[in-house]
């Protein structure tokens, strides 16, 4: 789902009571904390070597020894999920971060650029926005070829237009706000107004969008991996793990179910935090 649209869903939505909101936030925070831990120090959470293959142990059901069971190569699914966190979330973070920085740069420059430059830039963005993020990422992979790096590039490029557009509209809107005008009337030079009043606002909106965009990017990257266009075996990566579990659904459902749950939990947690941040920033900005 598009970051842009995902983010609108938070508008002025008061969560059902403060308590529910708090519970959701705490749950999301716990999930994110665990994920952050898994991404930074997987060795501390994992119980096995994620690459350790022992075909004699293949397709064991979840047990005390293997919490999420084992896959076809006898690897510990739990440990692979833990080790996969870094890569799977990393792509989302990296792509979103890059898209944010580059997008804000392009967008805010376009907003202050001469008309024809701005118009040309926006046409390109319009064309790119013509494609849903996943399709766009897919097409980028089509051009660059499959592979982990290309997937990251593809997801970044796919996310980029949203930020460019947001940065441009926000820059425009914020430079024509009454308070920006007031600062200019008082005598603050135009570029100073831009840096002190406009840019922080643009970055704030873009960051909020980014917290939501991470989820989108994680899903897109997982989708590409699932299609076999991303990282390859034996890399522990959730989309790929899910893909290799798909023919074992009846026999050994745990191979596909747990990586899938990991993706869902991550994206839900990220979205909750993103939504709450967004709602807060709107309350503040209103």
């Amino acid at each position, binding site marked *: 789902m598009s970051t842009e649209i995902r983010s609108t869903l938070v508008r002025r939505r008061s969560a059902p009571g403060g308590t529910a909101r708090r519970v959701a936030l705490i749950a999301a925070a716990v999930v994110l904390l665990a994920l952050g831990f898994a991404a930074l120090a997987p060795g501390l959470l994992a119980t096995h070597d994620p690459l350790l293959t022992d075909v004699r142990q293949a397709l064991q059901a979840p047990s005390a020894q293997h919490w999420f069971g084992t896959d076809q190569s006898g690897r510990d699914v739990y440990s692979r999920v833990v080790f996969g966190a870094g890569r799977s979330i990393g792509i989302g973070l990296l792509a979103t971060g890059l898209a944010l920085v580059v997008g804000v740069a392009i967008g805010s420059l376009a907003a202050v650029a001469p008309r024809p430059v701005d118009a040309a830039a926006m046409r390109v963005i319009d064309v790119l926005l013509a494609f849903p993020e996943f399709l766009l990422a897919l097409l980028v992979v089509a051009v660059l070829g499959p592979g982990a790096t290309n997937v990251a590039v593809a997801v970044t490029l796919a996310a980029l237009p949203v930020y460019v557009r947001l940065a441009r509209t926000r820059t425009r809107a914020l430079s024509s*706000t*009454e*308070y*920006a*005008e*007031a*600062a*200019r*009337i*008082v*005598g*603050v030079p135009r570029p100073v107004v831009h840096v*002190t*009043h406009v840019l*922080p*606002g643009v970055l*704030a909106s873009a960051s909020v969008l980014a917290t939501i965009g991470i989820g989108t990017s994680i899903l897109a990257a997982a989708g590409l991996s699932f299609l076999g266009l991303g990282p390859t075996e034996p890399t522990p990566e959730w989309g790929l793990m899910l893909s290799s579990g798909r023919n074992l659904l009846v026999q050994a459902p745990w191979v596909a179910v747990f990586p899938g749950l990991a993706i869902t939990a991550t994206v839900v947690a990220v979205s909750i935090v993103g939504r709450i941040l967004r709602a807060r920033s709107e*309350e*503040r*900005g*209103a």
Partner: protein
Amino acid sequence: MSGIRVRGLRIAGADGEIVRGLDLDVAAWECVALVGESGTGKSLTARSLLGLLPRGLTAAAETMEIDGVDVRGFGERQWRTLRGRRVALVSQDALVSLDPLRRIGAEVAEPLRIHAPSVRGAALRDRVRDALTRVALPEPDLRARQYPHELSGGLRQRALIASAVAARPAVLIADEPTTALDATVQARVLDLLRSVADEGVAVVLITHDLAAVRRIADRVVILHEGAVVETGPTAAVMAAPRDPHTRTLVAAAAAAPLRRAPRTDAPLLSAEGLTKRFGDRVAVDGVSFEVRRGRTLAVVGESGSGKTTLARMIVGVAEADAGTLRVDGRAWSPRAARGAARRRIQLVQQNPWGALDPRWSVGRTLREAVAVTGAPRSQRRALVTDLLREVGLSPAFATRRPAQLSGGQRQRVAIARALAVGPELLVLDEPVSALDATVRARILDRLLDLQHERDLAMVFVTHDLDVVRGIADDVLVMQDGRVVEAGPVARIFAEPRHPFTRELLDAAASAPSGPGTTA
């Protein structure tokens, strides 16, 4: 007796009782005004009469009869049969109380569709036309096909009343039906309500505008903090208010005109044939005037008459398409308004909600302005404190963010910012229209003091004539971008020449303390 009979109405929320034991009787053919300051529970009372209290609030009463029906203990379903058919509501925000996506005809027809499903087709159209005719809406057939946004405020208000009376309810409750309207339109709407009462409907008029009460109400009920403090025939209560609250209300209605000697020195600002176009539309058309030091020029006119556009040209943020502006005899334009000269003329914008960066504290906003003047860093804090004092705010406000300020406080911060750079001319674009009466009076007083202290010239944009009388020396009346009349306040008020000015004055006279619009 049909109409309304309420005894001991209590409305309670989580924080306690808001309405405490209200009694209200309204008979058919009668118009009763419910009067009180903002927040006394007028709207809640009205909503409780339709069983439409907001979530979290509960109503209880010893007696509550609507059109002869005892509604105590009614469930949602039972209320629904009543609403629109026996009791109708014209709610407070007329401009946004019609569904913007539906045609006026559909909106007016809706109560009929709900309560008289048998009326259909041509019969329904006839009933809609009747309702629209009844509220004296010109060209009812055309209006029925239009959408709310295609109607002016006054027409919209009348359409709303038409939809309320379409199913011929016995009781009509009108919640501040004139707040959002231009003074000229207010009178028409009030007369319409009177005529509804004269057709046998029990009308409740909710307002805090005593002029409106005088004009149409038979009786008046004065509310204070959720309780009735005084009630009686309108004339009697107005002539001899017994309760102190009533007395303040009646007293606040009149303002003394300003009397100052005109100054004869060279004008600070002079404009000659100023014109500004937006595409085909001429927003400001050949306007000329002068402003002198220490004096105030009021610019009056309807919404859209070009007041803001004019103000922006004066400040030097918009370029005039034709005509000249001179400050102290030298040409003034966005190009000239650079560097230190930029600071000579300052603007207080129309909308206090958008004028402050929501992320910045009040102190930071003011420091930014102070810094522009080249004040050394060490003194800025003290200067900010002085500025806040000057506009009547305590220094503690420096740490607040805009979201933590009321509208009046924001407006004062905006004024402080403008003053920070030591302007000679202050342009205020409707600085008080968004504020309630008491806050408004305080700000106007402050401005007069400042003008005196700093020998400040002011251009004061407003469409409220009452304010003009209290603050301005001269007045410029604008209509459709053109100046239709100009001169000293006293003369204009005494002998208006242009029909538009006269119309403005008439409307204002019928509502001398008419609240500012919130447009």
